[in-house]
């Protein structure tokens, strides 16, 4: 009984926007992908986790001095909240190429259109129903964290 309630709570909200439904306006995405507020603490972890988002592979973040080996392929992220709105940041994380044409930054909430996609980092071909790199809520968590980054 309790288990059933917990399962209900954990299930994606009915209003979740799938990758193909996201509406970009000049690269920005105004509407939350889940309707559930993002969790900045979870976003902070995601940003430096090697497993999924791994943003620090390319970006430096002074707010996380314990994270070793930060990359410098992209700009430092320390003051992004003073330069971009929430909608712009959501758009950049979901599909950066619609903000920065031809960017090397991967599109984290996109399905389809990849050349020889793999099954994660196994080198095997991707399954036919390959999902986006990040879930809708993970995008929201990251955006919530990025919004805390101001000088």
């Amino acid at each position, binding site marked *: 009984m309790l288990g059933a309630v917990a399962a209900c709570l954990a299930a994606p909200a009915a209003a979740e926007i799938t990758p193909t439904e996201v509406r970009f306006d000049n690269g920005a995405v105004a509407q939350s992908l889940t309707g559930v507020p993002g969790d900045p603490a979870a976003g902070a972890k995601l940003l430096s986790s*090697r497993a999924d988002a791994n943003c620090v*592979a390319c970006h430096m973040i002074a707010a996380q001095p314990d994270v070793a080996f930060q990359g410098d392929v992209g700009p430092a992220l320390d003051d992004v909240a003073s330069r971009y709105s929430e909608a712009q940041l959501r758009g950049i994380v979901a599909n950066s190429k619609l903000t920065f044409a031809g960017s090397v930054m991967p599109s984290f909430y996109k399905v389809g259109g990849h050349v020889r996609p793999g099954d994660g980092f196994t080198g095997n071909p991707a399954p036919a129903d390959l999902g986006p790199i990040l879930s809708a809520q993970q995008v929201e968590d990251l955006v919530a964290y990025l919004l805390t980054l101001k000088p």
Partner: protein
Amino acid sequence: MRLLSGGVTLAAVLLAGAASADPDPTATLIVNDQIEIATRAPAPDHLKDVFDTVQSGWLYRTEETRALQMDDFDNPAMVFVDLGLEQWDGVDGSEGKSCASCHQGIDSMKGVRASMPKVNPAGNDLWSLENFINACRTQRMGAEEWKWNSDPMKQMTAAISLQSRGMASTIRIDGAAEPYWEQGREIYYTRYGQLELSCANCHEQNAGKMIRADHLSQGQINGFPTYRLKDSGIVSIHGRFVGCIRDTRGEPFKPGSPEFRALELYVASRGMTLPIEGLSVRH
């Protein structure tokens, strides 16, 4: 290696963490105190709009890693060269022959690595060193093919590559080789995998930058095969290509595939003004 994923190994972390000195673009590679090998050269004509200078991957490694390549006693790849020399003299196959039966000493292989890959004798395919080795094994020795990344194959390519140490590249990218070169260039600029990254995104646009713990080089292959400290073994050219495409969350082509042989020619041509290093050492 898992640049953008969960699997950066402890060894990588320790090695990078222990590095006391950063890459040094002014370092000079002198092997055994006597053989100076240029690690910087003017870019080949076809690459002039991209780079002024092409640079060996050696320059991008730490002082400790660079030092291992400066003395054959310290260079762990030399163990594999010795094993390759044993293979060279070893009789195998139905004809009762070894490589030495036809080619005599391994020094007869001088310049061979510097010309690879090239159009085969029949003129209908582009062959890497591995293909030439397997053609001798199957057609002349009556022996089994070696798998592309098998130990004996890597030992043999190591021994043969050393014979071209310090030599200028003699690859051809025109004439019969041109269609392969064009195919290789196409692959070099294609954005693979779920991360949508091309070779050029990392090794042309971002050479010199840090991607996680790694200093991005120009991705040259003049130093291959290489001894990789993290793998404690030899990595072939195609083995490296597999790793790089896998790191894009992509599905790599197979080692020895027509795609990777074409890519090998194109990548070799990007560094064709750099001498062959024989056997490099990387972390």
